[in-house]
């Protein structure tokens, strides 16, 4: 009954709005040229218009949002997206997901920088500490909550984050950014952008930051300070009117601390926690060639190479080559087709340690993929239906198919109703299939050492998720727009830990018994939720952007399962309720005041009480070239717990109040 009422209300809104649109165009067609010249129009950009008609729960963080937020890293930027779960574990570790199933190295979220995927096949998760570009160079960050597997492939189960940087033509000139404060002790970016010849633009930059330690639960210094130096470039060349070529790359060098947990030896099998610092190095290089055949057909070839080395617990080195080709064509009068193929080769080596190692320690894996998507204009400018599918073949679970169907209905120029049904897969990562984690151990009565832990399962299958989504977007007036998305997901073959028969192991010596659990696919469940956000330009100077997300997950075990932890972990890793409020006030004389409040409800596994984070800052734009800003972050509560890694492999520290000042000078 209520549902019918809701649908009736929704339809009534639609009818009212489209009747209004008709009335308005009638008014416009009767206007004289003089009247038309005087009419003020709303300024909605092409991208905005296109995005408002997307058939998925998309949220875009613009460069303006980035400047206003005062965030100094990418994870902090993602907090403003309703439905994103961002939990900082310590200074350099985050658990980030969308729509739940969050954890350190959460593997249901696909993250890309200019189309290059940055998740590691080791865990399927993202090393957020090394995902960085100068924030001033970001054009926008597109965040899609919900599945995107039919285009982006495995791991795009709960969301896709695509960080899109500006082209070199947009960053010409020199830029100096420098700042510092009590936590972000020093940071800066030096950049120069220029042109070489008539058709090539480039930029080169270097960026440095040094962040201090956060307090731990017991000590004032949590040993998690870190610093990074990064250098990079981008060049864009128009070879001809039909060909463009862009290159970009970066190199980084960093050192970060943490309280590491380790097992000294088989005969002393209790975890020892000690502060340690590890070096991180890496870099990437990528080429994108776009060729336009005609207005109706173009192709993109992207080749990328990515390498990293992390001296932490696993001591791993990895190199990955990715090749992706996509062809976009308008087919006939009504169809907009994109298809593509992709290949990835990733080679890794790891030393491991007694508490965590991989079997085998060195592995080369390949991934093959192909996808097709066809946007069909059923009624042009009114109704579009987009079926699509991706087929992938991965090293562990073989072939996987990820189909989806999406529909958009545009009842008027100001409204979008969309719906989608999709199947997404989460393929096993090396950690799931080949990981050996040891929690601890003891010495048995007969003197035999015993280790307790988890062993990977090379026969692990894909986790599969079927998601049904419904969304509505409307620009009610020039001042107010509202975006709503609701979803229902069924998960199957989700990962559990099942006891296996104890076994003896000779190495590392002395011989010992292993009491182990193995990864299996014996859990299934449902999730439902809703996200809503609005942008309200209250006056010429004041803009309010509230957002709210609700999510609930229910998990069940197969009767054959003996798992005791996975259900609670999956249900309780993210809050049921979360909300954001952004307030932007532009003041006279180039001053702007921004306040961001983030409410995150209680997380139940491991328990983190609900909290509100408050950031606020003042920016003074002194002319076109120079700006000064001061920001306070996390102002409400000092030494606040934000997220705890359930595996306890990474020690948590507490968030503290901080402030910094920044100067930005564009020459």
């Amino acid at each position, binding site marked *: 009954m209520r*549902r019918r009422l809701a649908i009736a209300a929704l339809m009534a809104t639609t009818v009212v709005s489209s009747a209004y649109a*008709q009335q308005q165009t009638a008014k416009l067609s009767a206007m004289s040229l003089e009247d038309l010249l005087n009419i003020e129009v709303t300024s909605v950009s092409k991208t905005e218009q296109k995005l408002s008609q997307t058939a998925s729960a998309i949220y875009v963080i613009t460069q303006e949002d980035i400047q206003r937020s005062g965030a100094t890293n990418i994870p902090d930027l993602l907090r403003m997206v309703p439905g994103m779960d961002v939990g900082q574990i310590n200074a350099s570790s985050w658990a980030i997901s969308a729509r739940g199933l969050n954890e350190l190295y959460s593997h249901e979220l696909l993250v890309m920088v200019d189309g290059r995927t940055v998740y590691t096949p080791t865990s399927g998760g993202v090393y957020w500490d090394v995902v960085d570009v100068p924030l001033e160079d970001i054009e926008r960050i597109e965040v899609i909550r919900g599945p995107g597997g039919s285009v982006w492939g495995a791991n795009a189960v709960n969301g896709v984050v695509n960080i899109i940087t500006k082209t070199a033509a947009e960053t010409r000139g020199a830029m100096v950014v420098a700042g510092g404060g009590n936590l972000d002790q020093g940071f800066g970016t030096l950049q120069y952008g220029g042109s070489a010849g008539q058709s090539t633009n480039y930029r080169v930059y270097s960026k440095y930051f040094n962040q201090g330690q956060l307090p731990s639960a017991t000590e004032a210094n949590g040993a998690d300070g870190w610093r990074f130096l990064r250098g990079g470039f981008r060049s864009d060349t128009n070879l001809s009117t039909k060909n463009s070529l862009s290159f970009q790359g970066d190199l980084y060098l960093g050192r970060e601390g943490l309280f590491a947990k380790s097992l000294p030896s088989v005969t002393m099998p209790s975890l020892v926690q000690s502060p340690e610092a590890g070096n991180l190095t890496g870099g990437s290089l990528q080429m994108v060639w776009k060729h336009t055949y005609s207005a109706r057909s173009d192709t993109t070839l992207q080749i990328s190479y990515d390498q990293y080395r992390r001296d932490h617990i696993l001591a791993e080195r990895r190199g990955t080559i990715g090749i992706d080709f996509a062809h976009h064509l308008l087919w006939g009068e009504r169809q907009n087709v994109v298809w593509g193929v992709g290949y990835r080769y990733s080679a890794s080596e790891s030393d491991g340690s007694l508490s965590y190692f991989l079997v085998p320690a060195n592995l080369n894996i390949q991934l093959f993929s192909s996808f097709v998507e066809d946007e069909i204009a059923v009624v042009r400018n009114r109704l579009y239906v987009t079926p699509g599918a991706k087929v992938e073949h991965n090293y562990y679970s073989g072939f996987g198919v990820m189909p989806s169907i999406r529909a958009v209905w545009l009842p008027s120029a100001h409204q979008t109703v969309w719906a989608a049904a999709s199947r997404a897969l989460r393929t096993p990562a090396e950690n799931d299939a080949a990981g050996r984690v040891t929690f601890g151990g003891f010495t048995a009565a007969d003197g035999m050492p015993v280790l307790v832990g988890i062993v990977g399962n090379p026969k692990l299958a894909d986790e599969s998720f079927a998601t049904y989504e419904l969304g509505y977007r409307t620009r009610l007036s020039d001042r107010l727009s509202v975006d709503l998305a609701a979803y229902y997901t069924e998960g199957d073959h989700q990962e559990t830990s099942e006891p296996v028969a104890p076994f003896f192991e000779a190495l590392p010596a002395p011989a010992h018994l292993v009491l182990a659990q193995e990864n299996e696919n014996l859990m299934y469940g449902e999730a*439902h939720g809703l996200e809503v956000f609005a942008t309200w330009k209250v006056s010429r100077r004041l803009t309010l952007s509230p957002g709210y997300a609700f999510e*609930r997950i229910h998990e069940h075990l197969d009767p054959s399962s003996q798992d005791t932890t996975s259900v609670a972990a999956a249900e309780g890793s993210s809050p049921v309720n979360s909300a954001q409020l952004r307030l932007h006030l532009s003041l006279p004389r180039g001053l702007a005041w921004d306040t961001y409040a983030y409410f995150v409800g209680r997380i139940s596994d491991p328990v983190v009480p609900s909290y509100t984070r408050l950031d606020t800052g003042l920016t003074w734009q002194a002319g076109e070239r120079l700006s000064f800003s001061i920001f306070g972050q996390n102002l409400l509560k000092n030494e606040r717990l934000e997220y705890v890694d359930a595996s306890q492999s990474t020690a948590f520290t507490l968030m503290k109040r901080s402030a910094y000042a920044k100067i930005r000078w564009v020459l």
Partner: protein
Amino acid sequence: MGSVRPRPRRLLFALALRTAGWFLFALAAGVLFCAIGAAQSDQPSEYEVKAAFLFNFTKFVEWPDGSFDGPHAPIVIGIIGDDPFGDSLTRIVAGQQVQGRSVVIRKERFGEDLRRCHVLFISASERQRSAQILAGLRDASVLTVSDIDGFAEAGGSMQFVMQENRVRFLVNLDAATQSKLRVSAKLLALAQVVNHGQAAR
């Protein structure tokens, strides 16, 4: 895998729908009231106004004899490239008569005969190809309109520009004259006149 197990699916699904229903109801009701309240103060979008201009241009331009198949043949407004107007242009011209002719909207494609249009709007998506399109229409009696930067100076007849959230337009008189189009003085009085390559200044 493949094991048969009971699934309390219907119940949970119903529960999910009920929760979602509640929210949708509350939000839709809110949206409805806001929509009614906000509808009065809404401003038209850039392209709604541009669509109204396109339609208006047909009233102030005279095409040479032989541009129409007959005395009652419609005036054809063609759009090439991504259509930015949505349905606003179609709505504006619906049922309208100009110089005793109806006005029709036609989607055009690059490579097709664009000379059958009387007005051709070249979408910003055709930026790369606009010079080619103009070259193909040289001496044809087609009023070319676009909002691509530098379009009028590059030989297009009319170009929309945005100034302080208002739509303005430039006229390249040389280009219009070369196309044997007669632009009324009223239209010229409201336009900013530029000449091809600024040469005739």
